């Protein structure tokens, strides 16, 4: 089970998928695009979690499963671990990644954004860019949700990107 592909190809595929769903398939309906991207991530996470848990013992509780996501799963996907994990011990976990690999090539510089400068408004451009970036983040949210669901933990995952390239994923376990 081991062929190798350049990491940049994977980054390119992910970016193109997000832009295809946002720009071409569901151009006027960002909620549908977000849902589809998250669903793709869900299936990917579902399948990958089965594969990466193959050689290790099963999990005894939620914290063990989340720690697996932070350490082994994340290092298989991005060759690094989650930098910070916080929990309120009541079913909410915050996974913080200080340099998320898929965001390193995303810049939110409004001056380079659009070519028609007539009606461009910096705040509006900032919004569009932020919206596109948040679309990109739906994919890893789906991956985390799929992986946890396969391990038997139904949850809801959202992303917070107040300062790029750091981003944090908030996992709320449904009880």
């Amino acid at each position: 089970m081991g062929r190798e592909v350049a990491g940049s190809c994977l980054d390119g595929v992910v970016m193109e998928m997000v832009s295809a769903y946002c720009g071409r398939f569901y151009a006027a309906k960002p909620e549908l695009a977000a849902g589809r991207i998250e669903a793709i991530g869900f299936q990917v996470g579902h399948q990958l979690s089965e594969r990466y848990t193959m050689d290790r013992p099963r999990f005894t509780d939620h914290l063990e499963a989340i720690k697996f996501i932070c350490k082994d799963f994340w290092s298989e996907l991005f060759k690094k671990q989650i930098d910070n994990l916080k929990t309120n011990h009541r079913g909410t976990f915050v996974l913080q990644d200080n340099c998320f690999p898929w965001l390193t090539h995303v810049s939110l510089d409004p001056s380079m954004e659009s070519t028609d400068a007539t009606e461009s408004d910096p705040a509006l451009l900032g919004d569009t860019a932020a919206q596109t970036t948040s679309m990109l983040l739906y994919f890893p949210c789906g991956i985390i949700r799929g992986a946890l669901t396969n391990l038997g933990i139904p949850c809801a995952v959202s992303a917070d990107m107040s300062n790029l390239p750091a981003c944090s994923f908030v996992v709320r376990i449904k009880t």
Partner: protein
Amino acid sequence: MASTACFVIVSKNDIPIYDAEVGSAPKKEDQAYQHQFILHAALDVVQDLAWTTNAMSLKSVDRFNELVVSVYVTAGHTRFMLLHDTRTEDGIKSFFQEVHELYIKIFLNPLYLPGSRITSSHFDTKVRALARKYL
């Protein structure tokens, strides 16, 4: 050496997604039903045992006359259950591990809906070959 063995894969929603008679003994129709019945009845025992340990291989969980049920549970709570007679104890763990690898290959197929029946004849052939090798 003739041996009876029946192998079933049960998904985490308790739906059997694959079953096969893999023993080398001559097959009798009513015995096949009985084997499946024994395996399904053992699911309750597996459910309890699965939470007591974090190992994957639960070894033998139930007996019926001379037949023993061995179970292997994956992290996604999919159960591989094997009904066999007591002569064939040794190769079972390796059998389960190799079937686990085959199962993961099926699972990674994007066109496979998790929890649906495994209909691939390739998978079937390989499982039977593994059974001949290890059991």
